[in-house]
């Protein structure tokens, strides 16, 4: 497939190539981890969810240029959506994914008119405000959401009716890996589509866009909706693979965390963001088993490094390295 050939992408303007030769390495590492760390598949699955969530937020911030401090709302809605559906007896995992995507897309659709308009600052406040409203609503609706205790009393049927979710988490990992691959491919496609070009246009010169007849607000609303739907898929996957849905999945900490993850990975760079999310998940797990305080300290250092030393994050490093390699 020519889609997998980075050279075929050369037509789109150069900076911030969304598809990079690093992509095969990412998937090779993910597949290798299945064989190399069979005892850590639960962690690996959580990291895949984080990678999906990061890609969904990158579509919003990196490609559409919309900052949000409430993106975890869509992760949480996806998690609750699939968990609640499973509690009602609809335990098919793919149905759960579809439900997670739909409910998040629906809420994004409702919110988009207020998020799309306004400056970065108003967007931060609005998304923050909406997120805390939804968090509180989920907390109050105990019958539906389990309140502070969350939801754990649901089943997940075998995938495609064939592959049961085993105790070692093998099915869960391979399931998450497949969904990640699909999301990765989908994002690559979206960002190299006519729609993706329009998003680049908005970031490059939002003033010129209406002067060429562009429905800027609609473009932004569509990317908000797509981004919400993908986060919803991630949330559903999280609930299904961890057998748990809880308030923290739509909380502020997750929303803030994903902004950091995407900054570290390099906004607008799909491969960089994926690697950034994986690195973040690994380091967080390693440091927080030592001490939560180390984690906070490490996080601070890594973030400052990514802002001051490596502009453009990991994606920026990949691009610079790639250019260096081509010259040599």
């Amino acid at each position, binding site marked *: 497939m020519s889609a997998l050939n980075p050279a075929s992408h050369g037509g789109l303007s150069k900076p911030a190539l969304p598809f990079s030769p690093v992509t095969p390495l990412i998937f090779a590492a993910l597949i290798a981890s299945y064989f190399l760390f069979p005892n850590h598949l639960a962690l690996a699955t959580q990291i895949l969810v984080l990678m999906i969530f990061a890609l969904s937020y990158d579509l919003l911030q990196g490609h559409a240029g919309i900052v949000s401090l409430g993106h975890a709302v869509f992760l949480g809605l996806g998690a609750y959506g699939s968990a609640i559906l499973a509690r009602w007896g609809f335990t098919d995992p793919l149905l759960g994914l579809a439900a997670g995507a739909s409910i998040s897309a629906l809420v994004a659709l409702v919110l988009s008119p207020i998020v799309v308009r306004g400056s970065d600052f108003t967007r931060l406040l609005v998304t923050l405000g909406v997120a805390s409203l939804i968090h509180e609503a989920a907390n109050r609706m105990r019958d539906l959401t389990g309140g502070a205790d969350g939801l754990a009393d649901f089943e997940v049927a075998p995938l495609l009716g064939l592959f049961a979710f085993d105790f070692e988490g093998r099915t869960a990992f391979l399931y998450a890996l497949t969904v990640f691959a699909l999301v990765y491919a989908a994002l690559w*496609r979206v960002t190299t589509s006519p729609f993706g070009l329009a998003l680049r246009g908005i970031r490059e010169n939002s*003033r010129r866009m209406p002067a060429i*007849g562009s429905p800027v607000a609609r473009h932004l609303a569509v990317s908000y909706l797509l981004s919400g739907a993908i986060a919803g898929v991630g949330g559903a996957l999280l609930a299904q693979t961890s057998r748990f849905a809880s308030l923290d999945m739509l909380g502020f900490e997750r929303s803030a965390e994903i902004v950091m993850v995407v900054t570290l990975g390099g906004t607008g760079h799909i491969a960089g963001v994926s690697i950034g999310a994986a690195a973040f998940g690994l380091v967080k797990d390693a440091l927080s088993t030592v001490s939560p305080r180390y984690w906070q300290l490490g996080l601070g250092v890594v973030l400052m490094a990514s802002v001051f030393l490596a502009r453009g994050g990991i994606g920026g490093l990949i691009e610079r390295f790639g250019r260096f390699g081509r010259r040599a």
Partner: protein
Amino acid sequence: MTAALATTALSVRFGAFQAVRDVSLSVRAGARHALIGPNGAGKTTLVHALTGSVKPAAGRILIAGEEATGRSEAQRVHMGLARTFQINQLFRNLTVLDNVLLAVLERNRRTAVFWRSVRNDRAALDEARSCLAFVNLLALAERPVAALPYGSQRLLEIAIALAARPRVLVLDEPAAGVPAAESAAIFERIHALPASLTVVFIEHDMGLVFRFAERITVLVAGQILTEGTPAEISADPRVREVYLGRRGDHAA
């Protein structure tokens, strides 16, 4: 015959300051119509109001007889009104080709497509290339805009506007900041535009205005001072006073 572009008693205010005052303008289809006037006369503001990036305080705008006053800037483009900017408004980190391709895709309303590669749209690519060929930029199609010489960037401004396939094209100082030798080349391209296209342009160089315009509107302090043929305008003592007065004894 209905005018290609018309305004009635159009006014624009910035707070207490009235930048455009009671402008009633009628541009015939296929015209080459110049808008002149000293700096700060309100020419650019009038263009903003025509195209919809600034909301008028009063008055109406008609495009080919159709009411455009309440329409958004993007809607007016789809009604057939495109413009260029006095200060370049380009997509600087995109290639020259992608700048024009984006405009073609927006006109086609193809930018809603997110499931196919932008490179698959052969028809749109061909059209973008033909817009570039018209302004002699095809050889630079794969360059990023930021690497383009300034004069070529001014031509790209025009190519992007042409990609909207306008019926009326408004050019705000298309040769602004370009050395005299190159500005003639830019106007030569404007002159080569199809005769059916209505062109309104702002220009300071009177030589170019008299050479390329068949009708001239003079704007002073937001108001129309007069309108006429090049011969009438060059003979009008009030116009001479505005222009000579600025350069001459009133300059201090």
